[in-house]
């Protein structure tokens, strides 16, 4: 490993690590429930395209509306919130005191809203990769 890493490498590494832990968490949470694991994987794949075609606020509202206790959407929503509160983000992060992700997102101005969109898409890219790699398809 090089001593001096560029800012962007660090950033991507941090995101990747966080995403990896999230997928591991999903596997733990839904242990023995392959249906939920599969759902988690397919939702993670689906959300980025939704963000692009319908906007972030609309998508998060959708995810939140779909989350019921202990289902895949619920976990994804929680993980996105945790990510936005973590120190792996750039340009913008969510205050620890903020309670709800979508409430916070729609209370921001246009510029911040765009930053958050970029941020969440960048994170989801990693999440998608790891979900595809770590959650096996059943035969």
């Amino acid at each position, binding site marked *: 490993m090089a001593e001096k890493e560029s800012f962007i490498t660090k950033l991507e590494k941090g995101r990747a690590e966080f995403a990896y832990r999230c997928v591991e968490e999903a596997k733990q949470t839904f242990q023995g429930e392959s249906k939920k694991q599969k759902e988690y994987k397919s939702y993670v794949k*689906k959300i980025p*395209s*939704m963000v692009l*075609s*319908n*906007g972030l*606020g*609309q*998508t*998060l*509202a*959708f995810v939140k509306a779909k989350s019921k206790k202990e289902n895949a959407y619920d976990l994804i929503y929680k993980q996105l919130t945790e990510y936005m509160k973590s120190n792996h983000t750039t340009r913008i992060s969510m205050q620890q005191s903020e309670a709800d992700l*979508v409430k916070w*997102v*729609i*209370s*921001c*101005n*246009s510029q*911040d*809203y765009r930053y958050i969109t970029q941020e969440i898409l960048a994170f989801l890219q990693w999440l998608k990769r790891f979900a595809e790699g770590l959650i096996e398809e059943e035969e």
Partner: protein
Amino acid sequence: MRNKERRIIEKYSKDYLFYTSKDTQRILGSIISKIRIERFDERKKKWEKKDWVYDASSDFVKNPSLIFGKFIPESLVDGEEKENKDKYLYLVIKEFERIKNDYVPTLLKRIKKTIKEDFEKNGFVIQDFSLALSWRLVIGLGASHPQETSMTLHHIYGIPYIPGSAIKGVTRHWAVLRFAEELAKKNNLGIEKAIEEVSKKLENGDESLSLFLDTISFQDLIKIFGTQKEEGKVIFFDAYPDENIELKIDIMNPHYPDYYGGDKPPTDWQNPVPIKFLTIEKTKFQFYLASRDKDLLTKAENLLKDALKNFGIGAKTSLGYGVFEEV
């Protein structure tokens, strides 16, 4: 006796909300308002709430595809108002009615002119024809949408159109089915086996099949649609509506939701929940094909017309949606 009616504009942000950034919300809130409709009850001698609508009563034209996909108002009042889907679809239709008489006619003329002139200058032959929907059409019903039933609207002009990829796809599928039928007859195969063989050979550009459908040979098909190695010789353009475009709200109503979405048997005591979606009704569409080869072009046109008349395009074709007829 005519009922007295009054319309009251609800204050923005108390009763409804847009899931966008703060500054956009303010703008949208001032453009799109929620209106409560009250009627005077003669017997009770008081005003009572009867209904409500969204209204975008500003004097500039707005893009229906944005309202449909990104700026969906969400009602915050509990109870019946939570189900606001038909209200906002109605808003999309109302906005669409406004652009219909605004820039749409000019736009359609321009598209026509561009396709014809530019391609003819470059040595292509253009074939255009129009067919009318015999009932309704919905394209892109399954695309991602926060309200779960979507429809393809042009992202700049906001008008419904049929993407060229869908047109080419349905023509190709139709051709495969017809040729498989011929193959099954000729070689005494099961239809599934025949479909598999035809589509595999079409994909790989394998010219070993000697089959004919009217005057179209299997080799023509390979030329029309192209393969991994060689591009298709016919260009399928997006199809745009011609003249008057009618948008309508439609419903589907699964009668056994717990059976489809869960593990219960399909019993008659389950409550159906109607799902609303947007459709285009009885509208004429203009189709364009281009090629440097006149003969192939005519063949492709015949295939496409057959597919549109007999097979249909878009969602719910088995229920008669997306089927066209001659004008």
